[in-house]
């Protein structure tokens, strides 16, 4: 929670350099992979969950702030709708993968691995966001 607040301050003060904050989304994806690999080690799982809390403190605030700025910059309710639709598509893909894993009778660790793969894609898509939605101070 402290980090969530501090990352908000950092977002305001260093708006030109928020790539690090956004890339914490990629870190969370990697944590999913570690979860899948270290499934039988409770201590590592505890460490991963703790780390995930810290990282998500940065990610959630930055992601939310950027979303608001995007809606504002686009000055349109359309963007807000698009966001819901994009979330829907993402979740449909995720649900489809899980149904596939169940139907093919794959090991349940594949579920965690798909989270990693999906989360990794965030690295690709967040790369150029800071440049497009920077607002003048």
């Amino acid at each position, binding site marked *: 929670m402290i980090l*969530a607040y501090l990352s908000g301050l950092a977002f305001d003060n260093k708006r030109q350099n928020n790539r690090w904050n956004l890339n914490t989304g990629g870190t969370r994806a990697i944590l999913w992979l570690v979860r899948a690999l270290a499934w039988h080690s409770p201590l590592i799982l505890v460490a991963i969950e703790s780390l995930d809390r810290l990282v998500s403190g940065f990610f959630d605030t930055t992601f939310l702030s950027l979303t608001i700025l995007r809606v504002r910059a686009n000055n349109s309710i359309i963007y807000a709708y698009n966001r819901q639709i994009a979330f829907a598509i993402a979740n449909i893909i995720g649900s489809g993968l*899980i149904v596939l894993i169940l139907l093919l009778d794959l090991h349940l660790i594949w579920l965690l691995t798909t989270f990693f793969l999906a989360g990794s894609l965030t690295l690709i898509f967040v790369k150029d966001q800071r440049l497009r939605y920077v607002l003048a101070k």
Partner: protein
Amino acid sequence: MPLRSLLESWSGLRSVSKQLKWLYISVVLRRVAESFLVVVGPVFLFNLAGQLPIIGQVFQDEFRSGLLAVVIFYLLKRLGVLLLAPLVAKSSISKNPKLSLIIGQSVLMLAIISYTFIQDNIWLFFVIPLLSALNLLWYWTNYYVILASEVEPKHIGQEMGVLEVLVKLMGLLGPLLGTFLAVSVSFASVFWTASFFLLLSILTLVELPNLRLKTVWRWSDFKLAAANYSASAVITGKTWAYWFFGQYFYFGFSTILLPLATFWLQPDLYL
């Protein structure tokens, strides 16, 4: 009063407009309501699998049937978003953000109350996702629009930071209390408690000012946003983990304990 001034000064909430404060209170109350259902909701759906036509008969073992039921439920909800988005966007209600927020929240309350009747009316399993979809479209779209129009861009990070802290803080005890209620009283008690918080959330929305928006819906506008968001949105798939482990876990502490408890209770599942 000095304490309040200190808090507002420290948090940056001093500059927040009155209407945004009510919106923040509303969303925090909503998050409290949702936190009650984080573990209980999927567990309830999981246990419902046996009663469901077709879905309950796909797999022989109870675990996979339950998981499939949960997945199908949330799949229907998101499909509902896709199907209903153009209709909602073009409806006259959507041109009034305040009304949309109130109706969206009311629809969610109706959906949660419907959970209590689902065992005797199994068809509700297919209706509740659609109600939830309407909520997503009416509530969250207008929530972001109001935030975007009212928030001070220079302090947006700080404000969102404080909001995140409040949401996380208020959501801490929800899963624990929710699962405690489910185990010690009943599932219905959890749903009614969550509905109560949603009712409070609706009442706070009444304080919002009336804004009018011109809504124009074009599918072509969707392409850019979808390309940007779809991948990053998948990370919210983390929620699947809660659902996945929920069936064994009736204490609702946090994800730190979820995998541990699951592994110790059911080690064969992962071997």
